């Protein structure tokens, strides 16, 4: 059982800390243009964080106790593949979900 003090401390400090992180550059810079070398790095922020964030969740899914799972692996490949081909987030998501349930369904009946 988590103590009430722990929960409230985490909510307040994590909330404040997360706001400070989000406000950091927006709050300080106040419209001054950032140098070109910094902009060139920041263009790759999203593609630098999200693939790394998701890769362990695909390779070592918690639901299977961290072992490679064909359904989740194929769903991930379908999702990225359709996203690359269609340039459409929604189409990619549908492809991932359909593949996941299809393979889970097939393996359940084997």
């Amino acid at each position: 059982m988590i103590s009430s003090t722990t929960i409230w401390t985490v909510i307040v400090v994590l909330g404040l800390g997360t706001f400070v992180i989000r406000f950091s550059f927006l709050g300080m810079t106040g419209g001054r243009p950032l140098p070109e070398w910094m902009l060139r790095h920041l263009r790759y922020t999203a593609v630098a964080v999200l693939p790394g964030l998701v890769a362990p969740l695909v390779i070592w899914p918690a639901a299977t106790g961290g072992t490679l799972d064909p359904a989740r692996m194929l769903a991930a490949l379908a999702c990225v593949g359709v996203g690359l081909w269609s340039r459409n987030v929604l189409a990619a998501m549908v492809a991932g979900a359909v593949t996941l349930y299809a393979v889970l369904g097939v393996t359940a009946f084997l």
Partner: protein
Amino acid sequence: MATTTPKTAFWQGVRDGVPFLLVLTPFGILFGVAATEAGLPLLETMLFSVVVIAGASQFTALQLMVDQTPVLIVLATALAVNLRMAMYSASLTPYLGGAKLWERALIAYFLVDATYACAISRFEREPGWTLRTRIAYFFGAVLPVCPSWYGLTLIGALIGTTIPDWLALDFAVPICFLAMIGPMLRTAAHLAAALTSVILALALAFIPYSLGLLIAALAAMMVGAWVELRMQGRAQPVQS
């Protein structure tokens, strides 16, 4: 080409934000369910989503609290997960840095993965937009996304433990992230950055507290910037 007014940009933002509801629905409900299963009362579960409003770090903090991790480590780890948002903040600053202080504070509070993804891709495509138009667009994208996050947490907290395992909702979150990645890989530099991120994040997964991910992300950004320079075929003047 028709000029975009703040009003039309706002509704463009709403339309761009709506698809993320499909992403957020399982994610938000799952958080409500997981928090309730961990023994958090309804008020604390709701405050978690309203005050922190960052799904990945909420899940991280919750999991560590369930494991009876010391509070300081819970906080350090969950904040490390959110450090990527400093990069979001920095990359939106050229577009929104001219806004009033209270507007920037409000933008910062609502700066989540979905609103960032909408804003950065739209602002890059519409370099002619004015500051007012961009701000209107951002809050348009906030409208379908952020209030839903609170509502979905509430639904999850209320339905609690009744979701069957066969729905495999655990993979809803990875699919959300994966779906965003494909369309982002516009150039060789983006592809190189993404591959670097994956390889290093997996290789450095043994480093505790998500620090491996931070190192991987920084290296991936540098690789992206380097490949971009190489693709231009000429060296940029080094800035001091």
